[in-house]
């Protein structure tokens, strides 16, 4: 075996990819909140979105 380190590296890489794919790892940033009130279902407006109400402008060319 000429490349034992490369072989080990490759197998670990494949194992990591398989784990990432099965467990659904990803790079998307989300804000995790705990203990959201049950009343959200009855009054969705009572929930304060972390991402809402920033001034923004989407304009064309």
């Amino acid at each position, binding site marked *: 075996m000429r490349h034992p380190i490369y072989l080990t590296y490759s197998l670990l890489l494949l194992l990591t990819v398989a784990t990432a794919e099965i467990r*659904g790892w990803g790079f998307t940033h989300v804000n995790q909140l705990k203990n959201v009130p049950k009343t959200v279902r009855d009054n969705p407006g009572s929930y304060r979105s972390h991402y809402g109400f920033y001034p923004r402008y989407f304009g064309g060319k």
Partner: protein
Amino acid sequence: MGSPLVTPPVVKVRALFCPNCGGVVQLRGYAHTLTAVCTNCFTVLDTSTPAVRVLQAAQEQLRRQPTIPLGTRGKFQNTVFEIIGFQVCQVTDDTTIYEWNEYVLFNPYKGFHYLVEYQGHWNFVSTVKASPALTKSSGKPAAIFGGRVYVHFQTAAAKTVFVMGEFPWRVQVGETVEDQDYIAPPYMLSAENTANEVVWSLGEYHTGAGIARAFQLKTALPPPIGVYEDQPNLHRARVKSAWTLCFWMLMALVSLAAVLSMLELNRDVFDQKYSFHAPFTGAPATPTDAAFVTPVFDLKGHTSNVQIQLRTDLDNNWAYFALALINNDTSEALDFGREVSYYHGSDSDGRWTEGKPNDSVTLPSIPPGRYYLRVEPEMDTQSASTSYRAHDVSYELTVRRDVPNYVWYWLAAFLLLLPPLAVWYRSFTFERQRWMDSDYGSFSSSSRASSSGDDN
């Protein structure tokens, strides 16, 4: 099985007195020695006749000290040789002077061989009787000898600048020969051209450690500097095997992707169409205006990702969606926002588009459970446009469980390519460094091709 060990017999060393300084000059090469150099005054003596004659007067030169002393014995090719002579040669290339050392090795049964040392690189050299056939290889002159193609490396005028000990030829300081080197690493074929003859010799590369072992030296020889012309490129054989392994690992990666794609659910668990109207108010939207929650849906299976897809009918407009995926049982929420905008038109540059009417986001590692989405769309409420489309959007919200994420496979493929690329680069720079010192100067593809002899 190697040939039986040939050890020089214990002989009485013949000695004579230097006519110049009276010092003792030892002769270990029997009658084969044609020239001896006094180690005291460096007078070159003709020892081919009983009447010792001075060939060259005492040399006014800087004394050079051989790394391996004269008289040292070493074993090459199962034969014991003794160092009986030492010379320093030099080549001047414009402003640079290159010097190398040559040791004369002698065995009474095997005759003379040579050790050539340049900056810690060693070659065990034997003269060859047959003349190699001259040809061309990759546009360069080449020589064929023993079924191997040797590519021309350089031609230079080599000048002898220092001699001591015994030599089987009439050596003199200042003597100049034209030296042509052809290489097929780890071998080198050299032609020494004088006015009367051409002498071919075959060298084989040795490391300093190998030479130290052969001569059983107590101290290590200086480490090699740079890349020598016939130094074998140990990276070259590793390049092919590294790419082979890389190929199989990429195949394994593709197979893994195929298998996992089949095993993944990749299924819609929620799909609903909605519309949103944002009337002109002249002020920013308030937080509670349009927020709503979806019905509860099940995310089954193991912990995996969830993809939220938004397909809108936006046309030269934008919408923002503040979203939260909320676990109905644990009351944990993942809060995120998506901007969707799609504009198009034409101007002096032609048609243009910007953005897309559809968007998706993949949320990582969502445990199984019962979830719902809180959705809060937002559009421009400050624009006074009277167009119906300016404040309205219809959209379809889809939640998809356990979708393939091909980014991992592309990332893994990239990382799998790095090691063989690194091995290839080392081999490439090795060859480039080798050919930088040749007559061909810069490294080229033909140089690479022609240096493939070390695979033989």
